[in-house]
């Protein structure tokens, strides 16, 4: 993460605040900072979303391509994640400076989306064994204010919700070759079901306590964090991946508490995101909306 310098006294203040369940900005350990969401900003992409979480700003674009499925999984489509840390966020990301962070985020996401129970790859299949959709989920980090995993996963989920796959019809030609006809009509499309699409929740350990949505200063004070990926199924939260970051170690009991916390927060966030996405869709209507974007 972008390095923020802090004095010992400031760290002590933050540590004690976490113990008292009253953080520097008045939040409790379970609170998130205000977020803002918008979808459909990028016209060159099949789906896009922008999520602001306090100072963290993420823009995601989803592009589609027809590809050949993996021979081991002929009925599954493909997903590919790409994270770009723009130098706009901090000069340290200039050139290849952000590549380590980008790699970490890509691995987290790949891990979370790997299970077919988390993401139904069969919906991306066109002709089993021959043709499938490949979705490129491109994530651009525009500003860094702590808690990147959560913001990135929320934005990715919103972008998938916004993605419109053109309707494809297949015709059988001679010699057993199937020809795919992709509809040109922008309104003739299928959507991707996102009920089970996972969200990442970073649970950060500071001192003896766990909290969510760490700010950049709080991240510096923590030795280790657990990134929990939560996937909902039939209203129940399931764990679809987890890993530790930060280079410290954690006791087993603490780990269990963190996972529990992550699951419960993940469930809450999922409901909230789905609700807001549907609300936005209702308010904006089916036609291509005039987006607010960066202009207001």
């Amino acid at each position, binding site marked *: 993460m972008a390095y923020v310098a802090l004095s010992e006294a400031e760290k002590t203040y933050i540590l004690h605040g976490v113990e008292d369940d009253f953080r520097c900005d008045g939040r409790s350990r379970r609170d998130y900072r205000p977020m803002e969401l918008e979808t459909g900003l990028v016209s060159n992409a099949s789906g896009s979303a922008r999520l602001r979480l306090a100072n963290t*700003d993420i823009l995601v674009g989803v592009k589609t391509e027809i590809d050949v499925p993996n021979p081991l999984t002929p009925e599954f489509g493909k997903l590919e994640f790409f994270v770009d840390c723009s130098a706009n966020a901090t000069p340290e990301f200039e050139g290849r400076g952000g590549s380590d962070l980008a790699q970490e985020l890509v691995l987290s996401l790949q891990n979370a989306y790997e299970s077919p129970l988390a993401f139904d790859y069969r919906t991306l299949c066109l002709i089993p064994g021959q043709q499938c959709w490949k979705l*490129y989920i491109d994530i651009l980090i525009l*500003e860094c204010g702590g808690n990147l995993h959560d913001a990135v996963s929320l934005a990715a989920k919103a972008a998938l919700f916004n993605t419109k796959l053109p309707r494809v019809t297949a015709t059988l030609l001679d010699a057993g070759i199937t020809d795919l006809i992709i509809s040109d009509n922008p309104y003739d499309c299928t959507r991707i079901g996102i009920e089970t699409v996972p969200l990442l929740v970073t649970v950060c350990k500071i001192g003896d306590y766990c909290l969510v949505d760490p700010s950049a200063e709080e991240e510096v004070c923590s030795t280790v964090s657990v990134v929990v990926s939560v996937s909902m199924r039939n209203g129940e939260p399931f764990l679809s991946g987890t890993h530790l970051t930060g280079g410290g170690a954690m006791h087993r009991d603490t780990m269990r508490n963190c996972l529990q916390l992550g699951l419960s927060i993940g469930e809450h966030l999922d409901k909230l995101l789905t609700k807001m996405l549907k609300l936005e869709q209702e308010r904006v209507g089916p036609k291509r909306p005039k987006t607010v*974007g*960066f*202009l207001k």
Partner: protein
Amino acid sequence: MASNFELLSEQGLRLDGRRPHELRHIKCKLGVFEQPDGSAYMEQGNTKVLAAVYGPHQAKGKKTESNDVIINCQYSQATFSTAERKNRPRGDRKSLEFKMYLQQALSAAIKSELYPRSQIDIYVEVLQADGANYAVALNAATLALIDAGICLNEFIVACTASLSKSNIPLTDISHFEEVSGGPKLTVAALPTAEKIAFLEMSERFHIDHLETVIETAMAGCREIRDILEAAVKEHLLHMGSAADWARVC
């Protein structure tokens, strides 16, 4: 001339309905982000660019001994910015070329002598590329520099121009017009001083027409400058009027 497509219809309209000397619709905003010292967002037609400025700050490393400011740029294009997905946002030849061009043009505008041993970082991110990418990037960078309170000689503005098959000059080229094979000229200028800081040309121009096309691009620059100036004034009036920041002493 390689132009195999007439960019101008019989009614004198271009592919997107514009007249030859018409610029695309420009929208912009200053101060889009909180962390950089200055930031700006600029839309010219469907080309959308974000610029961020960090600095002036202490120059790092061996560069600290120079007497002039160090201007460091980066040009990056998001992977979803083009119709065909772009594999690498930066580091390819085009991005490195544009990075140099940005540094060259901005050096003409920034008052270097005021910032000895300091460094100014300017980062540009193209979110949607629909023609004149470098020009819009430079315009966004100017706004971001102004937002950061960095001393400039004046606005530095860029504009593109081309020539239709019937030798009528066209201002502000869109992506489709670019790839249709017509000649293309990009000019970065200090409009009030009427100085050109950067010029790039592709395809072939007859020397007789070059003068006209340059003048067309310069006229485009002047118009863009007026639009940007109005936007800066409006931004400051609205943002600053809230308090007595603006009260005249």
